[in-house]
């Protein structure tokens, strides 16, 4: 059974009286443990689709079923709770909170759980260990390189052991070497920890790291 099922998904943005359709009747199925790369030209709706899967936005029509929950029918409050349990999101620009240390940034998703301080610490150190940054826990984002910041971002995405890891161009702001390291890390998360990953990218080399590549163009999604 698929972990994620997208059925007849449509998204239309409304700007004043204008309707701007992004895509219509998209279907997508992702198995547990899959690493899917989503490609397409700028403005094709890749990020919109990723945001819908992440529960950051709501579709105009259609269903998004993760496990046995249709998140398209959830309220904002339910979606927030669902995201905290099931989604680890990796941003292109890392989006770490500059006023918090690497440790505190990674700890953020765990604040929403009932874990004790000690348990949170164990989880954070494990995640920091996976991304190889246990020696940078007290550093603020400004004291880290781009690659290190993205690794902290990945640690934050995996710290609560989510069902899905969604990455929006995770290497888009990195140099080639750092990008390679990040892709290797994502691949490791998929292979060693069986994490299900959906990654939006423009980079064919990045897409090649996935099990499958899908293209979204002019509102049509193809394998």
């Amino acid at each position, binding site marked *: 059974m698929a972990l994620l099922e997208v059925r007849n998904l449509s998204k239309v943005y409304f700007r004043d009286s204008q309707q701007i359709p992004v895509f219509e009747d998209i279907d997508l199925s992702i198995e547990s443990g899959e690493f899917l790369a989503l490609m397409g030209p700028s403005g094709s709706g890749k990020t919109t689709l990723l945001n819908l899967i992440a529960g950051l936005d709501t579709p105009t029509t259609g269903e998004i079923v993760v496990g046995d929950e249709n998140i398209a029918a959830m309220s904002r409050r339910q979606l927030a709770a669902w995201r905290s*349990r099931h989604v680890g999101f990796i*941003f292109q620009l890392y989006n770490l909170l500059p006023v918090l240390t690497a440790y*505190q940034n990674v700890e953020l998703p765990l604040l929403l759980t009932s874990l004790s301080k000690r348990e949170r610490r164990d989880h954070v150190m494990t995640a920091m260990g996976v991304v190889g940054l246990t020696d940078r826990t007290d550093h603020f984002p400004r004291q880290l390189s781009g690659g290190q910041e993205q690794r902290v971002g990945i640690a934050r995405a995996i710290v609560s052991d989510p069902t899905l890891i969604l990455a929006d161009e995770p290497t888009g702001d990195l140099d080639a070497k750092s990008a390679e390291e990040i892709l290797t890390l994502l691949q490791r998360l998929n292979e060693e920890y069986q994490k299900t990953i959906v990654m939006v990218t423009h980079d064919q080399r990045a897409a090649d790291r996935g099990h499958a590549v899908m293209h979204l163009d002019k509102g049509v999604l193809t394998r």
Partner: protein
Amino acid sequence: MKYLKLIRANLFRSKRRTILTVASVAAALFLFVTLRSVLTTLDDAKEVGSETRMVTRSSISIVFPLPEAYYQWLQTVPGVSSVTWSSWFGGVYRDPKDFFATLAVDAETYLPMYPEIDTPVEQREAFMAERTAAIVGSGLMERFGWSLNQTINLRSTIYSPGEEWPFTIRAVYEPTNPSFGDENFFFHYEYLYEKSQFAQPGWYIMLLSDPTAAASVAETIDEHYKNSRAATRTETERAFQTGFVTMYGNVGFLLNAIGMAVFFAILFVAANTMMMSARERVNEQAVLKTLGFSDGLLFALVMTEAAVITIVGGLLGVGSAKLLFGLTGFQGAGFLPGFEIKWSTSIVGLAIAVLLGVISGFVPAWQALRLPISQTLRRVA
């Protein structure tokens, strides 16, 4: 508790801005509780007046004196058990700013009528025995560093301005009621009369044998002098004190108006700070929502930040006012006897600090609550 780190980090994102805002709130609350305490002190001053003592003064204004001849007749009014009088001297020590309440009184009749003036018996006897002697409040003694039996010179703003009037301090009193004030200066009316041909009683004070007779006593006196050259107005001492306080003009309105102006000024400062702070981090709020922070939680976090700023400012402002006025014994140069920042005023001040936090934090908190995640992330990217 687990969100404290996040709140603290956000508060110290711009230390200078946070510190300046806290200082602004503290200064405003300091001013607010001080102004309010002036009002409560003036209100308390009205309560000093007794309901069993009545005051007869000129019907035109308290600044016009009454003839000495009234004394004899007032004693005959039914319901009056004793009569005394006093006269405003307008005493100044060294410099015009060293001004305090100075009253020439008929000591023999005045002191028995005012148990609030508590002095040792031997000091009172010494005062009674000497024409240029004075009874001085302990606060005034402390203010000018005077000592018992010291001779000091005062000048009057009313009688022979510029002339020095020597007085010897023979008694020091502690008020039995703090609102009576410990910065008053009493001396013998005889001394005033001897040195100034213009001296006359400023007002008469009568002790009633029956407090319920106040209305009839007032009516009898005022009716009697209705067509004289010095018509009178008689009222209870409490009403008289209230009238005395209102001589300052509509102080309450003025102070309340200033208080409201301060409140709104600081509200705009705090609201502006919170808006700026929130606007700078809409992206971070969208990120927190992406991680699963709910709308309500973000609302609460922003509200808490605003409340921390205003409550800390409030505590500093109210606390420093209470400490400062408590330690210095400030009494407004004798015009605000018993001045203090009461606990009730402190609580009102802190409640206003909380209210400031709620109002200034509401708009940015509401914006955080309604923030659309995907549009915000896209806009910032």
